[in-house]
């Protein structure tokens, strides 16, 4: 039996990468928890509410999407619909060609990663510039983001300093402040040179067409202030019913993503610049991208589209922390990526179906999700689907469960095995000739046998013995 792809990737990682991810993810977990518990008596109530609100939006997406289109059009924006990532690419390329620009500034957008947009623009002769500092480093290294909020969580300051040196931004200097100042100096003129800028959208209000953009660096602001054309690329799932919903959703998004109460900037963009404003886009395009999302709404997997991209699930996930975002192979890593990745994959569900196996179903992700997505449940449904549809990729590296099924169905046999299980402490599992055993135990250590104690404890505690 072969090993799971995620396992194979994780085993190749340097200790320094694992260390960087561990530190970054853990600090995300701690800050989120501190802010939420300091601010709210019952944060769970808020995330359940936000979950219902997002589910309501998805269950009425046909209406809300049409409303958003109408309002944006009335506000003076041009609205486009892209059924696939390929269509979204074509629409963007056509707008850019017409603009006559060469330099294109870009803010962080996971939707644009689905298009591999920066590479596409580069290949077509444009000079795209990722302006979020983390994404800029990703671009310098021809890398991919490994986290949806902290794109270079897998790199330390020495890595970044080397990237800057290679990119011609000065001699090696790993002081984060120097790195930041160099990025500032390099990008300022580019913001003015670019006639077009591309952003994503955190939320789009169907009521007003207002697009909410959440940043700390101010790059999305600068991109717009310097450009004539603003292109917004958003999945159709970003639409929310009303402006009033923004306060709840932004409050949870920001606390869950960075542990802040507010980011430095929240932009609410409803259309092109106002009549007397000398700086900013005269033209605004909003591209609503489907790319398989319309097939997910209304299905048993629909709750995954509630996701507001905060990254809390990956920060807390023991598998993500030991394997890095790149191990998930697609755009979206961690628990939400485990579910969304295979569902959005243009090559079909099979391509990333093995990710559902790379989970302990421990439930930590569901506990932190600000929109109450039942992630372990959705992951289990994907496993079922792999079995039901005989998807080979989804079964790869998975131990056969026949023996377990036999034992679980025969209580006497189970009790016997529980008593004999102690022998396992003496079996050299890594040295067994079976391939399955080697693949599994190569990277795992079995704890000392403790089986059967629960039943003994239960009897002692006066519980009924039903076995």
């Amino acid at each position: 039996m072969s090993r799971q792809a995620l396992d194979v990737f994780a085993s190749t990682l340097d200790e320094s990468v694992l260390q960087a991810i561990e530190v970054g993810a853990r600090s995300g977990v701690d800050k989120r928890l501190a802010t939420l518990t300091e601010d709210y008596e019952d944060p769970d109530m808020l995330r359940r509410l936000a979950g219902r609100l997002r589910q309501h939006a998805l269950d009425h997406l046909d209406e809300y999407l049409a409303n958003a289109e109408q309002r944006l059009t009335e506000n003076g924006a041009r609205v486009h619909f892209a059924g696939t990532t390929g269509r979204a690419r074509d629409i963007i390329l056509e707008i850019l060609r017409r603009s006559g620009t060469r330099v294109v500034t870009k803010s962080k957008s996971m939707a644009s990663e689905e298009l591999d947009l920066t590479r596409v623009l580069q290949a077509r002769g444009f000079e795209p510039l990722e302006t979020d500092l983390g994404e800029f480093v990703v671009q310098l290294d021809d890398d991919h983001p490994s986290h949806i909020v902290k794109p270079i969580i897998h790199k330390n300051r020495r890595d970044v300093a080397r990237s800057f040196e290679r990119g011609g931004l000065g001699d090696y200097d790993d002081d984060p402040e120097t790195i930041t100042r160099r990025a500032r100096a390099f990008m300022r003129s580019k913001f003015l040179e670019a006639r077009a800028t591309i952003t994503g959208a955190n939320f789009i209000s169907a009521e007003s067409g207002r697009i909410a953009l959440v940043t700390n660096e101010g790059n999305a602001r600068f991109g717009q202030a310097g450009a004539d054309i603003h292109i917004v690329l958003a999945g159709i799932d970003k639409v929310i019913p009303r402006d009033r919903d923004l306060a709840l959703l932004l409050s949870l998004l920001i606390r869950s993503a960075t542990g802040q109460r507010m980011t430095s900037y929240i932009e609410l963009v409803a259309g092109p610049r106002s009549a007397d404003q000398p700086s900013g886009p005269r033209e605004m395009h909003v591209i609503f991208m489907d790319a398989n999302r319309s097939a997910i709404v209304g299905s048993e997997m629909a709750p995954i589209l509630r996701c507001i991209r905060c990254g809390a699930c990956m920060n807390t996930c023991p598998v993500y922390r030991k394997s890095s975002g790149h191990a998930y192979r697609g755009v979206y890593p961690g628990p939400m990526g485990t579910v969304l990745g295979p569902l959005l994959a243009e090559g079909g569900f099979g391509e990333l179906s093995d990710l559902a196996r790379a989970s302990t179903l421990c439930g930590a992700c569901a506990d932190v999700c600000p929109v109450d997505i039942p992630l372990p449940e959705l992951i289990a449904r994907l496993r079922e689907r792999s079995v039901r549809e005989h998807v080979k990729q989804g079964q790869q590296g998975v131990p056969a469960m026949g023996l377990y099924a036999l034992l679980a169905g025969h209580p006497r046999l189970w009790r016997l095995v529980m008593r004999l299980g102690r022998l396992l402490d003496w079996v050299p599992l890594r040295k067994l000739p079976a391939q399955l055993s080697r693949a599994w135990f190569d990277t795992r250590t079995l704890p000392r046998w403790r089986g059967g104690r629960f039943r003994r404890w239960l009897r002692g505690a006066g519980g009924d013995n039903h076995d």
Partner: protein
Amino acid sequence: MTDDREAMFARLRESLGRLNVRTAYPDFAADIATPKARRGGGPEVFRQRLEAANTRVVESVPALGELLRDRDTRHGYCDPSLATILGPALGDDIELLTTFDRERMDEYTFGITRASAGIVETGTLILKDRDTSDRLGALAPWIHIACLNPDRLYATLAEAIIDLDDDPNVILVSGHSQTADVEGIMIHGVHGPGEQVCLFL
């Protein structure tokens, strides 16, 4: 350019048609996510929250002049409608330029524009496009000074959002530009201002 609009809506309607029940819009107060401890409070609390959110509060025009001299910044952009009010009180050694020349962006060491309102809950300044004389003037210089009438305060984020008019670009500013992308270490002044100031007028 032909869009995929009709096909996309048809797919959506088909998928949603599978639902027996669609989740209802939940009943909630718009300010439900305002923490208890952050409800209420007037201008004084707002001042404290501004400071806590990395925004320096300056109470008078001469005090602003002192701050600019302290930072050794003497040439900056200023909203033309504010220059006549601020200029005389700032002193002759501080030059207020009332147009923002993109070609000379780095010569502006500060930018003074109007803030439309504030949010007490979060110590946030609201910059509306129609009240901002030049977006670049408020963004490109290292120091941004937002001039705010302290009577124009919203208690909560929700209240501020619900009261938005049809302004095309509203920016909620809570402190200076910052990043923690390198090893989680907070560095201020990435692309936007490295120092955010609020002057009450």
